[in-house]
């Protein structure tokens, strides 16, 4: 293992993140396979993918930081610039485009004063346009921190931005956002799902990025 000297102070991961990291590595026959989930874990630890995070991942799976960076740079969801607390991703692929996604994106950019690909100075809201997110039956669709809202309009998109600005929710509950701002869905989602995203990375339990039901948090 190559020892890396970093000019910045090396922030260590939390105990719980380290425990989770070894669980994740243990799920694969070869440690290298854990690189992708560990990169998400790194984002959950520090809010985005830092050089420090990539070094941690490298040391956990026995790669060099350059090898880890080569992997991370291939995938759009590993954010190497600090995004805002809320990442609004607006689909502008074919099915959403046919039903008005360009107007939805313009409304988001206008209301947030953030151009796609940018983050506001307060680091509250980032906006991006993305390729198909598999919500074509409920087009046009957006995600906030990867939680889906289907059946958007330019007006509901403005309301969504205003709500994020004023309510500043701790976590994004997808089902709640759909009820507040969404319309037609691709299909019946089933029961209300309280799982929520804690930051601009997908809310998936094993990565430590899901908050449970609100009542459990209180307990």
């Amino acid at each position, binding site marked *: 293992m190559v020892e890396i000297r970093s000019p910045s102070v090396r922030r260590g991961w939390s105990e719980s993140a380290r425990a989770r990291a070894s669980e994740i590595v243990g799920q694969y026959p070869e440690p290298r396979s854990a690189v992708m989930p560990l990169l998400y874990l790194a984002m959950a630890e520090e809010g985005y993918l830092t050089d420090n995070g990539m070094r941690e991942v490298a040391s956990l799976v026995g790669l060099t930081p350059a090898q880890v960076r080569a992997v991370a740079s291939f995938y759009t969801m590993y954010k190497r610039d600090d995004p805002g607390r809320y990442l609004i991703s607006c689909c502008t692929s*074919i099915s959403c485009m046919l039903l008005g996604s360009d107007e939805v994106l313009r409304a988001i950019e206008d209301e947030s004063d953030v151009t796609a690909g940018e983050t506001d100075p307060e680091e509250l809201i980032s906006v991006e346009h993305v*390729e198909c997110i598999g919500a074509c039956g409920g087009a046009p669709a957006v995600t906030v921190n990867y939680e889906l809202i289907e059946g958007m309009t330019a007006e509901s998109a403005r309301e969504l931005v205003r709500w994020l600005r004023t309510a500043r929710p701790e976590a994004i509950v997808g089902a709640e956002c759909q009820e507040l701002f969404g319309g037609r869905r691709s299909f019946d989602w089933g029961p209300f799902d309280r799982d929520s995203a804690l930051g601009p990375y997908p809310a998936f339990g094993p990565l430590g990025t899901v908050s449970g039901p609100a009542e459990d948090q209180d307990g």
Partner: protein
Amino acid sequence: MSAPSIVTDRMTRHPSDSHTLERYLETGGYQALAKALEMAPDEVTGEVKAANLRGRGGAGFPCGLKWSFLAPSKPAYVVVNGDESEPGTFKDRQLMERDPHQMLEGTIITSYANGANHAFIYIRGEYPRSARRVQQAVEDAYAAGYLGSDILGSGFDLEVTVHLGAGAYICGEETGLLNSLEGRRGEPRLKPPYYPAAKGLYMQPTIVNNVETLANVPWIIENGGEAFAAIGPDGSRGTRLFSISGHVRRPGNYELVMGLTWRELIYEVAGGIPGDRALKCWIPGGASAPWFVPDDHLDLPVTLDDTAKAGSMLGSGAVVIMDETTCTVRATERLVRFFAHESCGQCTPCREGCSWLERILRRIEEGAGREVDVDMLLDISDNISPGLAWPPRMTTICPLGPSAVSPILAITSYFKDELMAHIHQGGCPFD
């Protein structure tokens, strides 16, 4: 149409809890697994072969045949392709969110048939709800003894790992997916020699199957391959989930027996076009598929073979409907932009060609197009996909580059007038 419902039956009848283990068991779940575990592994493969189940991910390869190609060396792996990202497609999301145990039971049976003791479920990163529900199903299945050691006392062991992608369409290509699962860039591998059945995950024999394909497996084991093969026309057996989107009254996923016509699919199943506007064209099988137009294709049967004969494919089952208000140049630009963005960059014709096509199309749409641009579009397309043939002749490792050519073929053949109008008027006639 009275379609037998195979993969959407449970979620239709029990919308409030079709994803739970309790409901799954109450509706006959995991009985196919119990039955399969009492059969010899090749008997299980035999049933799937008899079913004539063709892959639901895009290529339509016969599933049982794929299994029979698996090399004998151990360990072998099963990988579930839940990296659904072909524009227009949202069916596997519904199967994973609404009935994860069905897909999981299919995965366990497939692993048993192929002698795999570790299966991976690769779910696209933009589907966190799918990942959560599948993960919950996996945990519940472990707790109930359907996963882990000595499953149902059979001596068969299986571990399952749920793996999240991170926003790369190319990982839906099976060898790109395997690289991704190994913790690498999701660049496709050259076939031969890297056929997954011989040299797959960690260079070991690997079965890669789509979510919907595997969701059909429990029904096939329970009812027998012959019963499945009795549904639908020759070459397109069973049912199929169609994701219908765009300009229709009732977009959504529909489980259909193939063999109906496109007219029936668009006007009856999906309710026709809002405002009774005229149908202009449609994409019959995801962004990669060459387009269909009403004059030539509306009364063709919706089957894999009829669609292939007409020069396109059912692909991922995504049908995107465009009405008369659609600017086909803009639609093409949007589709080609997708492929330019998602090109992994390994092969020059795709990496360079797709982004040139995108830039030329944008120039035309924005009013700066020149007549020579039409020839350039075709020339670049010919470099990516020699002869502009269907199915494409490949100059690239995987079919992504040639897919970008499909919409170019549509606008240069069916909608050339519209393309020229953009150039001559110096702008988009639909603006």
